[in-house]
C-alpha cells in the first residue's frame, strides 16, 4: 500500500510495516535481573510503608521488593498474588504515579520513587514464566457462585472464591474473558497476548467454569442465577457510552473511542486498520489519551484531544498527558463541541470555548473549527444492562461494605459498582473483598 500520514480520508497502512511493530511494542520494557536488583536495592523497607496504604490491593511492597533483592522473585510474586491475583496486569497498567509510587518516601525525598510497578512486573513475570500456579484450592465446600463479567473484578472474585473451595461459573457477554484487559487497555501496555495468557494462568487454579457469549439481560436473568446459585457477583463494568449531544454526531467516521480501541486490540495486523489523517478525540480521561496516542501510532498526521474543562480537571494523569504530548498529540482544554461538520462523512468539528461560572460550565461566543476526517468520542462510559431489581447510586450499582447490593445474595464490584475510581487495580480489590464477604456469608449459612 502506498498510503502515508498525508493520505486524505480514513485509510489503512499509513506507515511502513516496521513502524507498526515498533509502535505497538512494550511501552516500558521489562527489567532484567541486574536492573531489578539495582531498583530493589533502593527500597528502604519502610515501617508501616505508605506505598502499601496507597495500593488499592494493599500489596506488601517492601516485603516483595526485599524478596527480589535477595534473589527470590518467585517468593516476591507469591506476596503480590496473595493480595492481587492480577498483579501481572496491574504492574503494566496501574497509574503508579498516582498510587504506590506517588506515596513512596523516595518520591517525597528526591522526586524519584522506587520503581514499584516495574519491580512488580519483574516478580510476577518470573513466576508466570514457569507456568506454575502459586495457590491450591481448599477442600470443596459444595457451594456454587455465579460471577457475571470476566473483567478484572469478576476474575479476581472468581479466583478468590475458587481458592476457598467454591464452584464458580464465570459468565461474560463477550467472546473472550478479560474485560477491558483484553478489549480496552492500550495495546502497548499489554502486548504479546498477555491478557489472555494471564486469564489462562489464573484459571489454572481450577474450579472456575467460563461461559463466554452469555449476557445478563439477554440469555441470563438475575432471578435465574439467584435461584440456581448460592450467591451472585456482578462485575459487568460499564458497557454503555455517553452521547456527545452535538449536532451531526451521526456522520460517518464519528465513533466511540472504546469501540475503536476494542477493534484495535483484537486486530493482529495493525497495518490493516484504517485511521484518519486528521483525528479529533473528544474527552479528557484515560480512554481519550489511549485513543489519541494509538491513532498517532497508526499513522494519523494530526491528532488533537479536546476537553471541555481545564487541564487540571482532566482525569488522565499528568504522566499520561505528557505521554500523549510526547507522542505528538495536541491537547486543547476549555472547549466543547458545537457541531460535527461534513456532508455524509465528517470533515471537521466546530468548538466553542467554555468558561467556568457560578452556574457551571457555559459556552462562550468564541468558536473555532478543527479539520477532521475521523472523530472519537471518549466522554465517559455508563452502566448498561444492570438488573432493574438493583438500586442504583449515581448511575452505578449501589453497594455497602464489601460490595453488598440491595438484593440479598447479590454482590457487585469493579466499575459497575458505586464508589471506587475506575481502575483495574480497584476492580481487583473490590472483586477480592466481595469474594471474601461471599465466602464468609456462605460458610456462616446453615
Amino acid at each position: 500500500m502506498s498510503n502515508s500520514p498525508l493520505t486524505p480520508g480514513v485509510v489503512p497502512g499509513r506507515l511502513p510495516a516496521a513502524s507498526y511493530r515498533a509502535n505497538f511494542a512494550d511501552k516500558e520494557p521489562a527489567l532484567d535481573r541486574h536492573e531489578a536488583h539495582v531498583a530493589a536495592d533502593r527500597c528502604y523497607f519502610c515501617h508501616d510503608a505508605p506505598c502499601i496504604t496507597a495500593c488499592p490491593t494493599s500489596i506488601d511492597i517492601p516485603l516483595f521488593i526485599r524478596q527480589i533483592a535477595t534473589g527470590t522473585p518467585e517468593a516476591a510474586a507469591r506476596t503480590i498474588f496473595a493480595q492481587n491475583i492480577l498483579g501481572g496486569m496491574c504492574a503494566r497498567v496501574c497509574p503508579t504515579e498516582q498510587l504506590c509510587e506517588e506515596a513512596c518516601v523516595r518520591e517525597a525525598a528526591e522526586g524519584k520513587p522506587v520503581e514499584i510497578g516495574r519491580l512488580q512486573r519483574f516478580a510476577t513475570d518470573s513466576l508466570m514464566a514457569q507456568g506454575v500456579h502459586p495457590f491450591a484450592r481448599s477442600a470443596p465446600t459444595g457451594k456454587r457462585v455465579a460471577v457475571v463479567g470476566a473483567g478484572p473484578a469478576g476474575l479476581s472474585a472468581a479466583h478468590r472464591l475458587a481458592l476457598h473451595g467454591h464452584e464458580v461459573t464465570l459468565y461474560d457477554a463477550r467472546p473472550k474473558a478479560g474485560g477491558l484487559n483484553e478489549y480496552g487497555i492500550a495495546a502497548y501496555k499489554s502486548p504479546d497476548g498477555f491478557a489472555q495468557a494471564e486469564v489462562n494462568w489464573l484459571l489454572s487454579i481450577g474450579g472456575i467454569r467460563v461461559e463466554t457469549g452469555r449476557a445478563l439481560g439477554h440469555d441470563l436473568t438475575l432471578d435465574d442465577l439467584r435461584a440456581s446459585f448460592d450467591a451472585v457477583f456482578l462485575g459487568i463494568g460499564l458497557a454503555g457510552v455517553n452521547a456527545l449531544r452535538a449536532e451531526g454526531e451521526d456522520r460517518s467516521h464519528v465513533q466511540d473511542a472504546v469501540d475503536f480501541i476494542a477493534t484495535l486490540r483484537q486486530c493482529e495486523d495493525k497495518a490493516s486498520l484504517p485511521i484518519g489523517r486528521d483525528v479529533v478525540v473528544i474527552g479528557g480521561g484515560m480512554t481519550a489519551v489511549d485513543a489519541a496516542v494509538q491513532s498517532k501510532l497508526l499513522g494519523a498526521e494530526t491528532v488533537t484531544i479536546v476537553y471541555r474543562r481545564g487541564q487540571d480537571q482532566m482525569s488522565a494523569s499528568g504522566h499520561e498527558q505528557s505521554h500523549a504530548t510526547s507522542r505528538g498529540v495536541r491537547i486543547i482544554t476549555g472547549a466543547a463541541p458545537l457541531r460535527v461538520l461534513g456532508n455524509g462523512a465528517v470533515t471537521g468539528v466546530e468548538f466553542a470555548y467554555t468558561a467556568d461560572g457560578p452556574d457551571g460550565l457555559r459556552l462562550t461566543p468564541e468558536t473555532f473549527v478543527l479539520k477532521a476526517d475521523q472523530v472519537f468520542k471518549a466522554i465517559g462510559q455508563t452502566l448498561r444492562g444492570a438488573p432493574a431489581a438493583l438500586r442504583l447510586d449515581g448511575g452505578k450499582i449501589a453497594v455497602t461494605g464489601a460490595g453488598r447490593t440491595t438484593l440479598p445474595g447479590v454482590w457487585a464490584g469493579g466499575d459497575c459498582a458505586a464508589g471506587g475510581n475506575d481502575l483495574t487495580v480497584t476492580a481487583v480489590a473490590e472483586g477480592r473483598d466481595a469474594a471474601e464477604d461471599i465466602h464468609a456469608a456462605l460458610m456462616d449459612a446453615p
Partner: protein
Amino acid sequence: MADLRSDFIGIKSPNPFWLASAPPTDKEYNVRRAFEAGWGGVVWKTLGSAGPPIVNVNGPRYGAVWGADRRLLGLNNIELITDRPLEVNLREIKAVKRDWPDRAMIISLMVPCDEESWKDILTRIEDTGADGVELNFGCPHGMAERGMGSAVGQVPEYIEMVTRWVKQYSRMPCIVKLTPNVTSILPPAMAAHRGGADAVSLINTVKSITNVDLDAFSPFPMIDGKGSHGGYCGPAVKPIALNMVAEIARNPETRALPISGIGGVTTWRDAAEFLALGAGNVQVCTAAMTYGFKIVQEMISGLSQYLDEKDMALSDLIGRAVPNFVEWQDLNLNYVTKARIDPDACIGCGRCYAACEDTSHQAIAMKPGRVFEVIDAECVACNLCVNVCPVEGCITMEELPLGALDPRTGRKVTGYGNWTEHPNNPAAVKAAE
C-alpha cells in the same frame, strides 16, 4: 596543592600511596603502568626462593561480597605468592627501578623459616636497586600450610628471629607485614620491633569464606566442587585494619615503630583516616583491582584538597587522631546527647521508629501524618536511629549543655567523669575507701 611528598623510613616517594604486594605489582608491565598513572611506590608481588616457582590453582581464585549495584565490598582470594621465576622478577624490578628512580620500590619476600633461605634470597635481590624489603608474614592460605606466611606471623618468636636475620644480612630498610589472624596485633608488632624492623605494614588478608554455593554445597571460590578458606580484603576489612594500626600507634612499646597502613583503602578519605591513626603511608590492593590504577589520581587530589582546607602538612596529619583513641574506661560518662530529627529533612520512612521501637529503647514516637519525634525521657543516645536513617544529616545528636536536666535520668549534666571513678564501679569504690 598540598605537598604530598612522602618519606617513609627514609624511602622517598612523590606521594604516600603505594600499591600493596599483590597482582597489581606482579610484573613489569603492571608496575610501569601504575607509575605512569601516578602511584608513589609499589611493594612487588611476594617473591619466593630460587628454583621452581610455586603454582596457583587453575580455577577461580576470588570470591566476593557485594553491596548495592554490585559494588564490591569485600574480596577474598586463594592466590599464592608469585608464580613467575625469581630471575624474571629480579630482572624486571631492576629495569623498572632504573627508569623510575623517584618511585618507591619495595620487594616482598617469603621463604622458608631458616637462616640459609633468608640469607640466600637477600643476596639475590641485592643489586636490583630496590629501596627496601617487606617480609610477608601475613598470607593466610596455602603458604601457611608450608610453614610460611601467617604461620610465621602468628608466632612472635619467629617474627623476631627472621627479622633479625634480615637486618643482619641486608642493608635495606625492612618492613614486617603483619597478619590480622591473631587475637592481638601487639605481640607480633613488638616482636618485629625487637627484631630490629624499621617499620611494620598491616594488615594482610583476613581468613575467610565469602559464601557457600548452595547448589554444590561448597565454599566459594570453588575448585572442582571444593573450596578452601581464602584471605579477605577490600572495604569490608578497613575497620579491622584501622583498629590494629591504631593499637600499635598508641602503645608505649610500639609507638615509635613506623606503620604502613593497609586494608580497604579505596578513597583519599580512607587513606587520610589511616594516616590520622598513625600510619606513615598507605598501601592499596583491592581498590586498584576493582577500578584500575587511575584511582590514585582521586586519592592525590582529594588528600591534597583536604590538607589545604585544614592548612596542614602531610606530616601534621600522621598520628593526629592517636591521642583521642582511648580505652572505654576513659570515656566521659557525663557527656549526654539526645537524638534530634529534622522534620524538614525527614522523608517519613519510619526506619528509625522500627529500629528504636523493636530493638532499642522505644524512644521514638510515630505521630499522625508519619511525623517522627524523639522522646527525650527514653532516648539513651545510642545513635542507632542515625545509622539506619537513609537521609544523611536528618537525625543528629544534640549535646545537652552543662547543668541541663536529662529527662531520662532526672539528673543534671555535670563535668567530666569516667568509669574509673563511677560509683557503680566496685573497683572505684574500693579506691575511694
